[in-house]
């Protein structure tokens, strides 16, 4: 190797402390960002697969008319690499030898379900089993309640229209059970090939045809793009995310992951910027010498640029080599926790943002100070020159803010989030600029008293510029980590509150007025707690301000105009609802109604508008007196329309609805209940709730893992910053020892100095974090502002402790070797 090649060889780089710190910071940065991106991608897919089970597919196409989904669409989907399945739902009468019953039939093909499994029992007293497919042709599965109502057993025959099918089992749960409370009739599942033979479906019959699709996101997206122009109002394309219950949880989780990812990016660029600046400062003498020896500025820039590119490539590769097993481990841990088999596919498409981020960060943050090296005056070889750091710092900072803004915007695609974060950072820097000078002046006043304390304060004051810049970096690191800790806490608390362990998981519908007392007795006998009983009157929304609703509604295709709504009566609104406008019914109020926000928006109605309903043969009208927001994912009984007691629907024939929590261990009570109250519909939501809780647990685990990694990255940034000035501090330590300073004094002074720095940075950072969270809270995670005292107190203490430890750590060589040796080594 030639001497000039060796001056800038990678092996040589590895011997220099500043470069080691910079490379380590870059590897940590790449590894963190890449792990988060890969794991988030894996998590996304896992969650979507979990969530897809709710549709029994990745996407559903629902026909709103009674026309089947065109065969050509299935063919195109299959050609595009998708799995497909067809399903028909209809209501009909079935009969045993002696009894008749109205049922809801679901006829499925051999592919159903594309996602999830069917829970099935061979007989009422057999083990529950999971089935990958529905019944074979000629067979039928019945809901246990229906079995009881018809007094049938497996092996018996069931007449469905013009055909007879053999009962081959009991259907306990289907993956696409749905959440609508309107599915009151008991379920029958049969094969789609047998439908024709029933002769039930005639022209004009009310039939619901569905197409189920599953496959890669990319294939789904291209099919969706092909299909979209052909979909008229007769079809509805359903994505997992359109499922209100799950959509919100998934969106929040995704927001958090993106926030975590963008904070990791910010930490990464801080680390890179700090390390690069230190590196460039350390390189000035070498550049001056090379210039003196005749190297031109152009060649110097080329030398350093090629170094930077080499480091970029090497650290990216090294970071990925660490990130891939790390993401795999996280995925494995999650799979074990969730008792699932691990399917971890490395998606390279998820890595490109990492590469872009790293390269942009490298060239926007690492390059500017390094590129300025070419301007180093050759005169430096003769005497030290003052640096023009202040002027360039402003340009660097401006560039940094613009690039961070662009990067985060591209990455998060959420202007509000980016503005909140950068706004908090701007506030932080403004506070630092204002408070910095005062703080340092204040420090000087406190520089009296005990020896080590005085030494610590003097050291902070003496290096006031370095103190301020370190304070800024530490405070920003604390702010980023703090933001994440705060958001995570409120996110988890939000979820916990939303779906506590004992959330109601069974609904009872169709409770006749005369059964109410018996039901209440049943609950108390079995020590079950239930929500209030809501009277239900089923009615169709037919008029808006005395005009036909289907003609004047803003969204004429709204599903709620096509079906019967569950209208209820309540003196007070459910706890998780909020009045958005208007007033809730005053005590004794008998007029008016309360409408749910999204329905009001879809209909284009407001306070004071009149709605007309057709209930059986009756027509009633009422004026909108309040609009409510409803938490659809609360798993509590929720209603679009509520009337006051003694209001427009009072006195109309009604049934009641309630919900209650039934632990898994008491599940057999349900069998007795079904026998005791054959007319009451039981909607078993426990599997849905369990699944949502499982998803929340998964997301919680991911959130914790990502938080841990970001905290590690934050610690890495602090280590990088402390190491950057280590040489100078060690030299000072050695000098102090040479001048007779006691080891004990030195240790105490250093610990005090760093602890004070950490405490100040912690306080400023955590305040900025509160500001950032306050700005984020409303829209992103929909919560209210409050002080988070435990974090506000703990984080500055933690930061003080961490920095004190780092300070103590960098002092080790000063205490271990003789001052003379150390001074010579540091020369």
């Amino acid at each position: 190797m030639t001497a000039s090649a060796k001056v800038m060889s990678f092996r040589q780089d590895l011997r220099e402390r500043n470069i080691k710190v910079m490379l380590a910071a870059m590897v940590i940065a790449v590894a963190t960002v890449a792990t988060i991106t890969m794991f988030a991608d894996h998590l996304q897919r896992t969650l979507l697969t979990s969530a897809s089970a709710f549709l029994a597919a990745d996407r559903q196409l629902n026909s709103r008319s009674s026309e089947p989904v065109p065969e050509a669409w299935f063919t195109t989907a299959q050609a595009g690499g998708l799995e497909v399945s067809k399903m028909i739902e209809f209501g009909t009468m079935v009969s045993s030898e002696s009894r008749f019953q109205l049922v809801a039939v679901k006829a499925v093909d051999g592919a159903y379900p594309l996602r999830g499994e069917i829970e099935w029992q061979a007989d009422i007293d057999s083990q529950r089993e999971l089935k990958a497919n529905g019944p074979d042709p000629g067979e039928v599965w019945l809901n246990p309640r229906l079995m009881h109502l018809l007094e049938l057993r497996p092996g018996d025959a069931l007449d469905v229209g013009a055909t007879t099918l053999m009962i081959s089992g009991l259907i306990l749960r289907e993956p696409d059970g749905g959440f609508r409370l309107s599915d009151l009739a008991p379920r029958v599942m049969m094969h789609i090939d047998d439908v024709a033979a029933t002769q039930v479906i005639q022209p004009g019959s009310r039939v619901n045809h569905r197409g189920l699709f599953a496959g890669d996101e990319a294939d789904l997206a291209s099919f969706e793009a092909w299909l979209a122009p052909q979909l008229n109002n007769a079809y509805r394309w359903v994505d997992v995310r359109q499922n209100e219950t799950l959509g919100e949880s998934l969106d929040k989780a995704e927001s958090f992951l993106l926030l975590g990812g963008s904070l990791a990016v910010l930490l990464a660029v801080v680390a890179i910027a700090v390390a690069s600046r230190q590196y460039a400062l350390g390189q000035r003498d070498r550049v001056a010498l090379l210039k003196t020896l005749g190297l031109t500025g152009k060649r110097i820039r080329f030398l350093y640029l090629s170094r930077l590119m080499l480091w970029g490539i090497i650290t990216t590769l090294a970071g990925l080599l660490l990130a891939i097993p790390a993401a795999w481990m996280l995925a494995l841990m999650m799979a074990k926790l969730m008792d699932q088999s691990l399917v971890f596919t490395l998606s390279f498409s998820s890595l490109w943002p990492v590469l872009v981020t790293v390269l942009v960060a490298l060239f926007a943050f690492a390059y500017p100070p390094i590129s300025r090296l070419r301007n180093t005056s050759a005169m430096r070889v003769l005497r030290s020159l003052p640096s023009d750091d202040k002027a360039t710092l402003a340009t660097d900072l401006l560039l940094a803010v613009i690039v961070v803004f662009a990067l985060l915007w591209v990455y998060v695609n959420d202007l509000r989030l980016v503005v909140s974060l950068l706004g908090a950072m701007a506030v932080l820097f403004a506070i630092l600029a204002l408070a910095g000078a005062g703080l340092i002046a204040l420090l000087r006043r406190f520089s009296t008293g005990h020896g080590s304390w005085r030494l610590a304060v003097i050291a902070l004051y003496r290096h006031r510029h370095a103190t301020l810049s370190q304070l800024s970096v530490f405070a920003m690191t604390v702010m980023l980590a703090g933001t994440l800790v705060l958001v995570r806490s409120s996110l988890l608390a939000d979820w916990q509150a939303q779906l506590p362990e004992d959330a109601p998981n069974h609904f009872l519908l169709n409770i006749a007025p005369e059964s109410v007392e018996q039901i209440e007795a049943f609950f108390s006998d079995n020590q079950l707690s239930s929500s209030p009983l809501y009277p239900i009157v089923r009615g169709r929304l037919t008029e808006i301000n005395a005009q036909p609703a289907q003609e004047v509604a803003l969204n004429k295709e709204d599903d709620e105009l096509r079906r019967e709504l569950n209208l209820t009566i309540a003196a007070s609104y459910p706890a998780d609802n909020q009045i958005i406008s208007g007033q809730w019914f005053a005590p004794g109020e008998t007029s008016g109604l309360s409408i749910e926000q999204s329905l009001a928006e879809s209909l284009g109605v407001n306070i004071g508008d009149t709605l007309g309903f057709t209930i059986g043969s009756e027509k009633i009208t009422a004026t909108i007196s309040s609009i409510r927001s409803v938490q659809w994912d609360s798993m509590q009984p929720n209603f679009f329309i509520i009337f006051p007691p003694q209001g427009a629907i009072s006195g109309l024939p009604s049934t009641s609805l309630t919900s209650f929590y039934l632990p898994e261990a008491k599940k057999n009570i349900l069998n007795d209940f079904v026998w005791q109250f054959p007319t009451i519909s039981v909607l078993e939501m426990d599997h849905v709730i369990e699944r949502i809780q499982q998803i929340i647990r998964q997301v919680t685990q991911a959130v914790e893992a990502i938080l841990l990694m970001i905290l590690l990255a934050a610690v890495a940034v602090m280590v990088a910053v402390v190491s950057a000035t280590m040489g100078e501090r060690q030299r000072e330590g050695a000098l102090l020892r040479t001048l007779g300073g006691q080891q004990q004094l030195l240790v105490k002074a250093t610990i005090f100095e760093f602890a004070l720095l950490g405490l100040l940075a912690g306080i400023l950072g955590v305040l900025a974090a509160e500001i950032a969270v306050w700005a984020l809270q409303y829209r992103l995670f929909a919560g209210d502002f409050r002080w988070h005292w435990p974090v506000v107190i703990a984080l500055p203490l933690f930061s003080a402790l961490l920095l004190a430890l780092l300070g103590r750590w960098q002092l080790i060589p000063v205490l271990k070797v003789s001052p003379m040796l150390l001074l010579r080594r540091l020369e």
Partner: protein
Amino acid sequence: MSIDRQADSVKDFMIQAEKVSYSVNLDGNTLPILHNVSLAIGAGESAAIVGRSGSGKTTLLGLLAGLDVPTAGDIMLDGQMINTLSEDERASLRAQRVGFVFQSFQLLPTLTAIENIMLPMELSGIVDAKHRAEALLERVGLAQRMKHTPRQLSGGEQQRVAIARAFAVAPKILFADEPTGNLDTHTGEAITELLMNLNQEQGTTLVMVTHDQQLADRCQRLFVIEAGLLHEDAAVSKTVTAV
């Protein structure tokens, strides 16, 4: 003095400064360092610049070597007006014609002795850098220390390596900034000897800044700088033979 000499023949001077001034901006105030300095040094001559600390002698050396440009005035180096050249052009000129020896040696700590000597030769595209570096190391008496890094060498040894490096590209001009300033008297003498001998062998023009009277006495000409003003000590300076 120099004006008369300049009249003889411009071409004969290896270094020529004409009314050179230099000032720096410090917190908004202009601080003059050199004022109207003129000098001319012939090819093959050795010149010492002496003066108190802070008198501006190192700045003058830097300006003469083209490490910076004067605020006013002209500097000619080997027939080229260097204050009108760009920084890169000055760097190329240095690579081909100028060598340096510094008080603090300025060896790259990561390179071995031989690699430090090879570096400027490689930068100027000299092919057999290794052999020439070996010969130079032998010449300065460090043939056995070739593979040692600066940290493994004493101050005197480091300065020998630096001198070998300075002569590696066979420069026409050698600038030395306090070459014995960091060395004890005995080592300083040995280094002086080596520097003067090599200078003579290679016919290099030597300009050095020094506090070392013994070293200054070995030079043919002596310039004294006081508060930014330069004058030649004619009593010391000897008659110069133009090359």
